[in-house]
């Protein structure tokens, strides 16, 4: 577990360095994630230890959102003042995204089947 956690931190660190050095617009951990994904593809296998540690970390993923979520305290004014645009935007945009994604994917899958 220690080795796998170190691997994750090293990839994050390399990601952060790459973001600063190359002035990338994406967050460091995202670059780390992409690099780890590419490394795994090159390697061709997934080490058991890394799989277990990643699963352990991701199983409690929602816990990690809590400290940031409590930050809502600092934004109560903004949320009360702008409750209408925020709530309408969240509900309609989310449902619309589900519909558009599903329709496009179904259409492309059907076309591919027909094309063969």
């Amino acid at each position, binding site marked *: 577990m220690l080795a796998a956690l170190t691997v994750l931190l090293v990839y994050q660190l390399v990601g952060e360095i790459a973001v600063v050095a190359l002035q990338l617009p994406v967050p460091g951990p995202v670059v780390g994630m992409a690099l780890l994904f590419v490394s795994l593809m090159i390697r061709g296998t997934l080490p058991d230890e890394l799989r277990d540690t990643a699963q352990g970390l991701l199983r409690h993923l929602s816990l990690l959102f809590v400290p940031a979520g409590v930050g809502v305290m600092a934004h109560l004014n903004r949320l009360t003042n702008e409750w209408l*645009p925020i709530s309408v935007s969240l509900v309609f945009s989310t449902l619309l995204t589900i519909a558009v994604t599903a329709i496009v994917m179904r259409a492309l899958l059907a076309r591919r089947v027909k094309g063969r």
Partner: protein
Amino acid sequence: MAPPLAELWVYLSATPLLFLTLTLLVYQGAYWIYRRAGFHPLLNPVALSVALLVALLSLTDTPYEVYFGGAQFVHFLLGPATVALAVPLYAQLDKLKHAFWPICGALLAGAVTALVSAVGIAWALGASDLTLLSIAPKSVTTPIAMGIVERLGGLPSLTAVLVVCTGIIGAVGAKYVLDALHIADQSVRGFALGTAAHGIGTARAFQESDEAGAFSGLAMGLCGLVTAVLFPLGVWIVRALP
């Protein structure tokens, strides 16, 4: 004689121990309630924990900064957890190759729809610029969304709250939208949920079937990556406009 409770509280709240422990305790309590309620989407453990902690901090007059002094140790793990998302993504590599082009098309359509419609609707209804910046990546998993918003000068903690709300809305509403569209394919249902509602949607998709869950997890990771590139690009274009 034992020190008065208030004094003890002042002493304890100055160390990270109190709020770190409290965060873990409250979350596990919230998760217990969520499980007991048969994983009802409205009792999302994140929403529940946040509500309980905010109530507690307000009652004790504790500023957020003091709380975060302890909770930052949990928050820090978001970084390695984001890197760890590469693992389930890699585990789905075969499925990814199999439906490569439909996935690319659906992903792009979904990610653009999420960004444009969230900002467009909020803008049309008069939201402020800072809110627009913070609501844009609402469909992306929190560590990625917060990272993007932080770099662009938005409010990461507001984004975290909006992302969690989005997840809950998606998890509750997806069934009705997908049924209305007569979409039966589990891979399509899962992929749509993961694109629109990230991890909370993925948890919901796993309740439908393993296939839906796997495609949802895949969509969550990919949508995060695509948005991490598209959104800063979009902001750059909008800011460059006269």
